[in-house]
């Protein structure tokens, strides 16, 4: 699994550096060359956004998973009003475009509610709110896929609702939804680039800033793509690892 990913990355890089079209464009990779001092400075500048991108994605993932789980539990409630609250949340937040959400939270919240969150917190809140709606649907699907007999068995040994969800239903549901959930994490990592618009100095913002002084946008944005590619390959490997680890206890008869 690992070699094929490296091959894909290398192939893509080779394709880009050598040029694949016949438009006669001459690549100027010196702009990010690790062998010149200018290139090194530029590379350092571009990669200095990594911390913010990671912090933003990780915080947004944590907040959205918690919120998404709570909303999915609301949607599954047998009390109609509670279930409706969950449905309304999902329908509202999944229909707001992420970019609009980022702008609205950053510029709108202070005006409307008097809440000034700052750039980073605005980014986290905007991404987490939008994605929690999607995650709520993923959680709901996972929970609903668990056989009714599991609920009945847990109830028949007297487990209260919270214990039933915590020890019986959710552990099984999470195994099943790990692939779509991993997908969502990758998506969030990418959409963190939208927060560059309100000025968070993450990877995309850094690239945008460098383009102003270095007239080599194509090389710089290509490098940016590679940065995201590497990050996302790492995330998918992490998700695969979790899948394998959880599958250990799901063994079938030999």
């Amino acid at each position, binding site marked *: 699994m690992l070699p094929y990913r490296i091959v894909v990355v290398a192939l893509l890089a080779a394709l880009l550096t050598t040029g694949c079209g016949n438009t006669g464009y001459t690549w100027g990779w010196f702009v990010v060359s690790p062998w010149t001092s200018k290139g090194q400075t530029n590379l350092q500048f571009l990669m200095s956004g990594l911390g913010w991108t990671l912090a933003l994605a990780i915080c947004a993932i944590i907040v959205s998973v918690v919120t998404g789980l709570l909303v999915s539990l609301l949607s599954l409630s047998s009390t109609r009003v509670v279930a409706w609250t969950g449905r309304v949340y999902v329908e509202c937040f999944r229909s707001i475009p992420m970019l609009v959400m980022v702008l609205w939270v950053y510029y709108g919240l202070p005006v409307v509610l008097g809440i000034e969150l700052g750039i980073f917190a605005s980014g986290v809140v905007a991404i987490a709110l939008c994605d929690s709606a999607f995650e709520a649907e993923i959680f709901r699907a996972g929970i609903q896929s668990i*056989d009714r*007999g*599991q609920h*009945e*068995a*847990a*109830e*028949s*040994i*007297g*487990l*209260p609702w919270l*214990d039933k969800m915590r*020890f*019986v239903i959710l*552990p*099984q549901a999470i*195994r099943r939804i790990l692939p779509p959930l991993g997908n969502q994490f990758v998506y969030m990592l990418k959409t963190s680039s939208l927060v560059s618009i309100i000025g968070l100095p993450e990877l995309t913002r850094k690239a945008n800033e460098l383009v102003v002084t270095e007239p080599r946008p194509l090389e710089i944005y290509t490098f940016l793509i590679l940065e995201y590619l590497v990050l996302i390959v790492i995330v998918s490997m992490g998700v695969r690892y979790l899948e394998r680890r959880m599958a250990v*206890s*799901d*063994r*079938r*008869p*030999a």
Partner: protein
Amino acid sequence: MPSNPLIVQIESVSKFYGSFQALRNISLSVRAGEKVVICGPSGSGKSTLIRCVNRLERHETGRITVDGVEINDEARSLAKIRSEVGMVFQSFNLFPHLSVLDNLTLGPMRVRKLSRAEAEQTAMHYLERVRIPEQAKKYPGQLSGGQQQRVAIARSLCMKPKLMLFDEPTSALDPEMINEVLDVMEKLAQDGMTMLVVTHEMGFAKRVADTMVFMDKGEMVETAPPATFFSSPRTERCQLFLKQILTH
């Protein structure tokens, strides 16, 4: 036994699914130590009836009391009833992501608040009683159907229930595995457990039951001790059912 205290009292219970009446005015009492076997054709309401006893189904009219506590929507009484009533399902319903031992200790630790050590001791005790202590570390998916059902019985017993409900416990098993489960149930009966069993295993019923109940179309058609029930059933419906089920 007639002087033993009542564990289950079902009084004029009816249940509807929409316009379909699943239970029609059922009354039945079970005393401590009594074994009641319920039989009847499929769709006769026998599973529905025992599922009402621990509120996996809710009855619309009538009263059900378990060990003196009436079953209603009150959360506290429901928790008390469920911790005292064990249930064994047709499809085992073990927790597939937990080892056999963890399946058995979950209830005692979370509901009875036992320590892990105490819960594991109880669990091993009951695994020995169902004769599979060596499978404790395995996962349900690695066991045969008969072994899984015996684990499910042990899981219920770990809660030290006053009453055990069995909902067609052998119907999903391959024939060669039915006896190992019935043996465990018979042993349990000999030890004095109060049991309410839905089954088609008439040999088991003859050996174990104190009272036979025949249900059809949501009605309790006939109740009798097994001797009279099998030799001289009163109603035509019961005669027909026994003829069909015993002649092969």
